[in-house]
């Protein structure tokens, strides 16, 4: 049964079309990698999934509900940057995952003690317990992203959206983040959409890899048409489709 | 309407320093208590601002000259009574030239002064006496009184018109040449305590308390009480000698009877007519003013000058007379 349904979605900014005729169905618990050339609209697609923007045409439904009008508790997100609150300590950031929905954005009394205990458990799981009282700015990039994911998960969203979460990390850190993410997925069975620039990363982590590209192309006006999903690979079988794709990477090259 | 709390504004000037003293010394409170009212005396640095505030209704009384009373509150439709005629300038205001020469030498020179103030009036009278007019000058340059001394020290400035204590400070400079001063037009620049006519009518006790307190201090000054004079001198930022020399060019009415006599004198109406004409000539009486007679002024004997149907400036000797009679 389809959990996330994207139905013939168009998005334009002003008169400029970015996405065209995007349709896709995703089952609960699937891990979807999204790849495509720079500027082709991957982040835009994620913003639509997040309900941060409303599509010009078409609609996106989650679990059969009417389309959401703004971001909310059911969708968690991690961006490449700015995904943790710099003015909160690491522990406060995790507690914020649960407390921001409260009227004052805080827990008080007993609840507070309990939330801190739960936060400390989460921190232990994501390996950040030794820096619980530090501020994010003092953490390495990899630790910051780990915290951002931990915080998003603390809110128990039904879908997790990742926009190039490891784009700014060096390869070593990146590999350990892959392990981290795979472990988490095993534990939670969450539905995940992840935008990445790195094809091998997309195939390694994803169950499916969606490729965004412009199917039509006007050489006199490169912005005349929008992008859509041109390939939808089954990536469960380890790295094998990656080899197949290699021959097709010209679609990823910028014009 | 009747009330018991009053606010009176004053600004620093030789003849108005007693207002500061009678506030500090408690004399005002004593008299206010006697009449069962409360009078707050507020010092305001900026003289024009104090009159504007009074005109806007923030104060029940203010210290002002006859000329500024006519132009601001009375011209602005606020019926105002001259409660106390404290003094007239008798040399306190002066036209000063840098270097040798006479009034005729002002022709073709720029003159620095506070425009539209009594200095401007004094200049007009001085030029009159020499058969000149403002058009014969190279212009008048509006210069803040606070900066007059510094301005005089610059090469740009060739002549200034100003008042004390600035006059005495400028006269100390080598080459300062006093051409004309208010002792040449005695009784024309008059320093008053003016109050709102309606307020005074509804609250005679307010008038009595102010006048009573004032003449108590006048008595001390007339007796030459050095402690009192020193305090006034320091409040005005100078020392006893400086203050005394300023007083010397001020015709203080220590005795209320003298003030009454002056106010009832025959000179006052003609002075006020001259002042009104000067103001009209400068456009100060406002665009609504068809002529210099637009504002009516009444005198103690009941006579008026200007528009008798629009009397907003009243010289009233009732309360000073009470002081003279010892009836307060």
């Amino acid at each position, binding site marked *: 049964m389809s959990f996330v349904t994207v139905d013939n979605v168009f998005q334009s900014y002003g008169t400029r079309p970015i996405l065209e005729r995007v349709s896709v169905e995703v089952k609960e618990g699937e891990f979807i990698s999204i790849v495509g050339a720079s500027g082709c609209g991957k982040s835009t697609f994620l913003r639509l999934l997040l309900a941060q923007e409303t599509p010009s045409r078409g609609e996106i439904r989650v679990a059969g509900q009417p389309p959401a009008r*703004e971001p909310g508790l059911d969708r968690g997100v991690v961006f490449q940057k700015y995904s943790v609150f710099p003015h909160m300590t690491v522990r406060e950031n995790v507690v914020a995952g649960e407390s921001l929905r409260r009227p004052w954005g805080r827990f008080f009394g007993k609840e507070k003690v309990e939330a801190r205990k739960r936060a400390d458990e989460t921190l232990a799981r994501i390996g950040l317990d030794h820096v619980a009282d530090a501020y994010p700015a003092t953490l390495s990039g990899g630790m910051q992203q780990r915290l951002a994911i931990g915080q998003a998960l603390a809110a128990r969203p039904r879908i997790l959206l990742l926009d190039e979460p490891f784009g700014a990390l060096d390869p070593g850190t990146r590999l350990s983040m892959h392990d981290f993410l795979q472990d988490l997925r095993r534990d939670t069975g969450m539905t995940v959409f992840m935008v990445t620039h790195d094809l091998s990363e997309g195939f390694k982590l994803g169950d499916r890899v969606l490729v965004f590209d412009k199917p039509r192309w006007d050489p006199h006006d490169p912005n005349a048409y929008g992008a859509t999903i041109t390939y939808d690979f089954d990536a469960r079988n380890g790295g094998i489709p990656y080899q197949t794709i290699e021959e097709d990477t010209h679609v990823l090259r910028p014009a | 309407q009747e009330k018991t709390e009053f606010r009176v504004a004053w600004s620093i000037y030789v003849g108005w320093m007693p207002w500061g003293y009678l506030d500090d010394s408690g004399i005002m409170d004593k008299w206010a208590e006697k009449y069962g009212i409360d009078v707050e005396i507020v010092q305001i640095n900026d003289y024009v601002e104090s009159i504007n505030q009074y005109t806007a209704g923030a104060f029940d009384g203010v210290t002002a000259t006859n000329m500024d009373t006519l132009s*601001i509150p009375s011209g*602005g439709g606020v019926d105002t009574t001259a409660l106390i005629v404290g003094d007239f300038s008798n040399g306190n205001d002066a036209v000063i030239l840098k270097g040798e020469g006479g009034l005729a030498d002002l022709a073709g020179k720029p003159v620095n002064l506070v425009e539209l103030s009594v200095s401007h009036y004094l200049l007009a009278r001085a030029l009159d006496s020499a058969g000149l007019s403002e058009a014969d000058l190279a212009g008048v340059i509006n210069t803040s009184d606070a900066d007059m001394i510094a301005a005089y020290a610059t090469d740009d400035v060739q002549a200034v018109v100003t008042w004390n204590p600035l006059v005495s400070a400028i006269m100390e400079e080598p080459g300062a040449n006093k051409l004309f001063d208010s002792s040449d037009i005695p009784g024309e620049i008059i320093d008053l305590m003016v109050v709102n006519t309606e307020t005074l009518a509804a609250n005679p006790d307010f008038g009595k308390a102010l006048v009573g307190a004032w003449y108590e201090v006048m008595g001390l000054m007339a007796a030459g009480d050095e402690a009192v004079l020193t305090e006034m001198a320091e409040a005005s930022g100078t020392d006893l000698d400086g203050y005394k020399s300023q007083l010397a060019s001020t015709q203080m009415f220590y005795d209320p009877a003298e003030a009454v006599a002056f106010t009832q004198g025959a000179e006052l109406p003609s002075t006020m007519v001259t002042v009104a004409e000067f103001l009209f000539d400068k456009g100060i009486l406002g665009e609504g003013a068809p002529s210099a007679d637009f504002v009516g002024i009444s005198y103690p004997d009941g006579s008026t000058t200007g528009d008798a149907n629009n009397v907003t400036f009243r010289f009233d000797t009732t309360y000073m007379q009470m002081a003279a009679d010892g009836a307060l």
Partner: protein
Amino acid sequence: MRWINRRPGAALAAFLALVPFALALAAYMIGSDMRLAVNPSDKLLPAPSSIVDTALRLFTEPDRRSGRILLWHDTLASLQRLALGVGISAGLATAFGLLIGLLPHVRATLAGFVGVLSMIPPLAVLPILFIVFGLGELSKVVLIVIGILPFLIRDLSQRVLEIPREMIVKAETLGASTSVIALRVALPQLMPRLLQAVRLSLGPAWLFLIAAEAIASDQGLGYRIFLVRRYLAMDVILTYVAWITLLAVIMDLALRALSRRAFRWTETAL
């Protein structure tokens, strides 16, 4: 939907933008009505209609004495002073900003001094200015310069320091000397910041201009405001204030437009 995510449409936004102006006007009219009911010749809050009359008169009728339309005359005088003061400050600030931002020795010498200078309240040292610069146009221009120059220097030298070190190193590897780096790399990149800083300092510049004109002058917008204060001609004052505000808004918009025009390179890709 959260208020944070709701956006007014174009029509509503235009309407909302007018609301505070309308409210301010209404408040004034009520206040004015109340005072005029008590005293019909009250000068403090003249009726809007009489302000409009006065404004028309000020903008069109020549002065009886001089035969000139004073408002235009005052405007010209003030704008001249303002332009000179701001222009000189901008020029000096650019030079000092480059020197302080680029050269460590100059920075060590001047940064602290300029910092302290910027803390001195300029109005308090006016008498000295008069003596040194006289009472003429010069002293008014100098007051503006003294008022805004330290801020401009601090701002611009900060901007020069913010030029990425990489870019300066790149210029060095292309053989650029210190003066070439200053003229060809730092200066052009400073220009948009200069316009921005000038926009920011126009407010203080007006303030100092008015203060200078209030103290010793025979023409200018500030002169007139402080002169007519002597007979509480609020209709004239309000007209002048509105006019000054309009001039300031126009200048601000013009500088913004200029900045967009002149520095196309600051615009990012589509």
